[in-house]
């Protein structure tokens, strides 16, 4: 039954985007950041809900994507929903599709609105990557269990004698999470594979990375990032802008950075997405809810596509997810006014663009008749991306869609696609439109 590529994701009711908000993205500094995943989600949602004409308990549900919630954040969506005063009656659930968790939340919300199950949904993603857990080795857990069971001095001494320094070596949750254990590769290593396959040079990657910073700097200077709501921490610290931006970057300084994944490789910290904390939300509504509360229409979620591919080349996810989406709506690459492709790695975006221009790849891997074509670089990630502002894995999908709407409105444009690659070998793509009336 492999016919899902031809079917619309939301065949019934229209799905409107009425508002959205995100936190500034805060670069991880090595220490746990000032806010937990749920703190971030709460901080992003409070101003959003505060400006709505309805109260939070009027929501039908809250859906939140998050890859690594903290130990106190089981079903983090529910934690956040209660903290936002949505009340006991509003159900909330957490979704996880690794790097696309935030996009998955929007998709799940859109499905429920389309089907008629819900009319008003708060959906988004959050991640405090700086607070990813540091764990004990299983051997250490076993030792602790023996220690607790040792009742007398003799048993305690025997247990103590088995304690080895190696047992104390911690398991870094973040690194484990960014590794695909089915193929034994870190995410960065999958990017190295793409560089090799499409013959992309280090200088090209660094150039892309530099542009990402430059574009973000320009967007901040022009006050374009209006979707950001400032954060005030309980200690009184204020964050108003994404703080991963480097204005001192240059091709020379980027070239000096050592590869971090393969010792002899090309992918450096400078041309990869930053490890970052952040949260982003969208408010989705049915036509009924729009009428009931007289909500403004920012845009519409038209369709979503999920595709799978070889996990060792997961960075090509967008290359696989976009074509079926275009086909379903009889669109070409050129019909899309603006693109947000997540910058997990500079080389990974460049590989996607190369794959679409490659006849062999399009025929053999994407099952197209011919190469898909090119997209205008002026229409891609116009305000920079994750290389400059970071990739809080759970939040990014929602940020891409939120920012794409911003870009479309700013340029009086209509159609956009937000897409990202997903660790484990998947791609997700969402087609949105700023037109409220047309489906």
């Amino acid at each position, binding site marked *: 039954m492999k016919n899902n590529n031809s079917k619309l994701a939301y065949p019934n009711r229209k799905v409107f985007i009425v508002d959205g908000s995100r936190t500034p993205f805060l670069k991880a500094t090595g220490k746990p950041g000032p806010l937990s995943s749920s703190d971030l989600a*709460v901080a992003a949602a*409070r*101003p959003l809900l*505060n*400006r709505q004409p309805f*109260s939070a308990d009027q929501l039908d549900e809250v859906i939140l994507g998050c890859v690594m919630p903290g130990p106190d954040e089981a079903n983090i969506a529910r934690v956040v929903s209660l*903290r*936002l*005063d949505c009340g006991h009656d509003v159900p909330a659930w957490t979704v996880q599709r690794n790097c696309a968790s935030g996009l998955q939340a929007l998709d799940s919300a859109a499905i429920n609105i389309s089907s008629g199950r819900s009319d008003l949904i708060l959906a988004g993603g959050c991640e405090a990557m700086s607070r990813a857990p540091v764990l004990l080795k299983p051997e250490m857990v076993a030792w602790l269990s023996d220690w607790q069971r040792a009742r007398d001095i003799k048993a305690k001494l025997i247990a103590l004698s088995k304690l080895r320094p190696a047992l104390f070596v911690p398991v870094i949750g973040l690194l484990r999470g960014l590794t695909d254990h089915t193929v034994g590769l870190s995410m960065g290593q999958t990017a190295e594979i793409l560089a090799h396959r499409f013959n992309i040079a280090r200088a090209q990657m660094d150039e892309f990375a530099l542009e990402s910073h430059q574009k973000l700097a320009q967007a901040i200077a022009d006050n374009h990032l209006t979707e950001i709501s*400032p*954060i*005030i*921490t*309980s*200690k*009184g*610290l*204020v964050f*108003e802008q994404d703080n991963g931006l480097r204005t001192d970057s240059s091709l020379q300084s980027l070239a000096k950075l050592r590869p971090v994944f393969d010792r002899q490789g090309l992918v450096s910290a400078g041309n990869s997405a930053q490890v970052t904390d952040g949260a982003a939300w969208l408010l989705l509504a049915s036509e009924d809810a729009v009428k009931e509360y007289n909500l403004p229409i920012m845009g519409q979620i038209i369709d979503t596509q999920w595709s799978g591919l070889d996990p060792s080349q997961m960075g090509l996810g967008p290359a696989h997810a976009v074509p079926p989406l275009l086909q379903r709506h009889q669109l070409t690459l050129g019909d899309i006014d603006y693109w947000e492709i997540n910058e997990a790695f500079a080389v990974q975006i460049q590989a996607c663009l190369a794959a679409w221009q490659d006849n062999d790849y399009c025929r053999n891997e994407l099952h197209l008749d011919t190469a898909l074509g090119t997209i205008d670089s002026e229409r891609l990630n116009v305000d920079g991306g994750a290389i400059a502002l970071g990739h809080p894995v759970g939040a990014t999908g929602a940020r891409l869609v939120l920012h794409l709407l911003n870009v479309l409105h700013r340029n009086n444009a209509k159609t956009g696609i937000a897409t990202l690659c997903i660790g484990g070998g998947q791609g997700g793509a969402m087609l949105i439109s700023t037109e409220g009336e047309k489906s």
Partner: protein
Amino acid sequence: MSTQTESLMWHKISDSDGIVWLTLDVQDSQTNTLTSDVLLELSNEIALLSNDTPKGVVINSAKTNGFIAGADINAFAEMHSVDETFYGIRQAQDLFSRLEKLSCPTVALIHGFCLGGGLELALACDYRLAEDSLNTRIALPEVKLGIHPGYGGSVRLIELIGVLPAMGVMLAGRTLSARAAKKIAVIDRIAPARHLKRVARELILRSPSKQQASPLQKLLSKPILRPLIAALLRRQTRKQVNPEHYPAPFALINLWKNQPANRQQYFTAEAQSVATLIRSDIAQNLVRLFLLQDRLKGFGKQIDFKAQHVHVIGAGVMGGDIAAWCALRGLRVTLQDQSAERIAPAIARAHTLFKRRLKLPYLVQAAMDKLIPDITGEGVAKADVVIEAIFENLEAKQSLFKTIEPQLRADALLATNTSSIPLESLASCLTQPKRLVGLHFFNPVAKMQLIEIIYGKNTLKKWQKQAAAFARQIDRLPLPVKSSPGFLVNRILMPYLLEAMQMESEGIPIMAIDKAATDFGMPMGPIELADSVGLDICISVADMLASTLGISVPDSLSKFIENGHLGRKSGQGFYQYDHQNKRITKSLESAYSDPELLQQRLILILINECVACLDEGIVDDADLLDAGMVFGTGFAPFRGGPMQYTQKQGVDTLNQQLQHLSSVIGSQFKPNSGWEGLS
């Protein structure tokens, strides 16, 4: 054989284990207090139980708000002689002793308030079991009314937990949470509500050994050590309160030190001590103020109004702290200012307040989540209450009101926290000028109980009542005050502060001026108070009042401000402050030849202004004026407030003193016309 009639207040049930459950449910009241009827009925019940002893007795309360809130304070005010009071106390003591002597195990099952006489009753039981909840409040607050525990509680508490912990509870009247009370063994067991009855039953059926003070604490109570410990306790207490102003804690220490060897006589001595204290002016003044709180609370009960969302505009010290206080009281609060930077200090202060008050991290987080920074002011359109707390400038406030008025919900209360601008001037810019009320909070918000509810000539009663109800909702005391320059509290304080500055410019040492005020019983001297309020704020309030009150601002004050010395907040005012904001008093002269004159000048000029306020009807009567000054400024509570003090000293005496001062010092002491109407 008993002529016993059915109890009206105590419901008695025998369960299948043979345990008797005595449940107190005082009629026509939401709160249980130990009225004479309650005690009489309990006496009858105890008599029955002694004749026919059950397996055990559990004493509990049918009220949702708590166990027993203490003795009947109204009765205190009505007792006429020391002997009558002594007799009443002895009777209650005797009753509690009979309860203590019951041969079966007894349990006090406590939830919510367990205060004063209520705790003394519980102390006469074998075991105390309390609900492990934030609502559980356990205390012996008698010293706050100028007395000390008198129903055997001081004796029993010391036996139970030892003299030092017991004095720690009684001397300051400190309130204990369930957990804190368990920690020092005032309470034997704590349990969540769902387990309380079962634990009570278990205590009776298993009757474990009873709590008693540790050997060390018992040693400290030996006659040979008592004088030493008592001296130590006195020294500690003197650091907190002046024995001449507040004799009760010292009487309690003496009672313990001089305790008769015979326990019965110890009880008698306790009763005698309390009976003497109750009749003192100090206790009568404190009891009167306690009852006046009820009168102020009554202003909040005239209308049904429950806010859920408060919007505060202006995140400065006052606005930020008002917002934090409202969030602490469980309201959703949006706090508006021009930028995140301006709001941030208020959020940090709120977090400190929440941590101190709520302690448990999940409660702190919940309170923080309720306090929402709102740079764009979206909360205006959603809030039930909107409070303006921006800087004191008529034009700025008016332009703000013009912007927000069209956004307000029709049923939203619109309030200003202005400290001196007349309400009428502010309201004139509104399309509905009858709507605006003043909610005048005092600094620090989390500490000062009073809110002046300011109404103008045209303010609709409905909004005034809502404002008062809102004050009660956030656990403050509302005082209706007619709008006029300075309202009540600031107007009365201003001549007092200026007189202090006048004395300073005469060359009188500031330490001597402040000492004169604190010796009278003020919590802080006028010079330090001016520094704390901020000299810039003082001068703006003084300017505002200058024409109406005919006062002049001393040159010294303007000089300070020209030099950027704004008081405590800038590190330098009349005093210097260290980096922890503490006053540096070293090397400051504090001696003055005639301290009495200083005190007279300060207090009389203050009272003179009080008399003028009464005359102009700024508040309805002298009781309300006293309440305002005590709860709004901390005016020496044991003196009962300025008007009570005036009555005690004699209206004519003070009038003559004013006339005298006006001839020897200056015209500022000229008695106001209001004195003629006083008797």
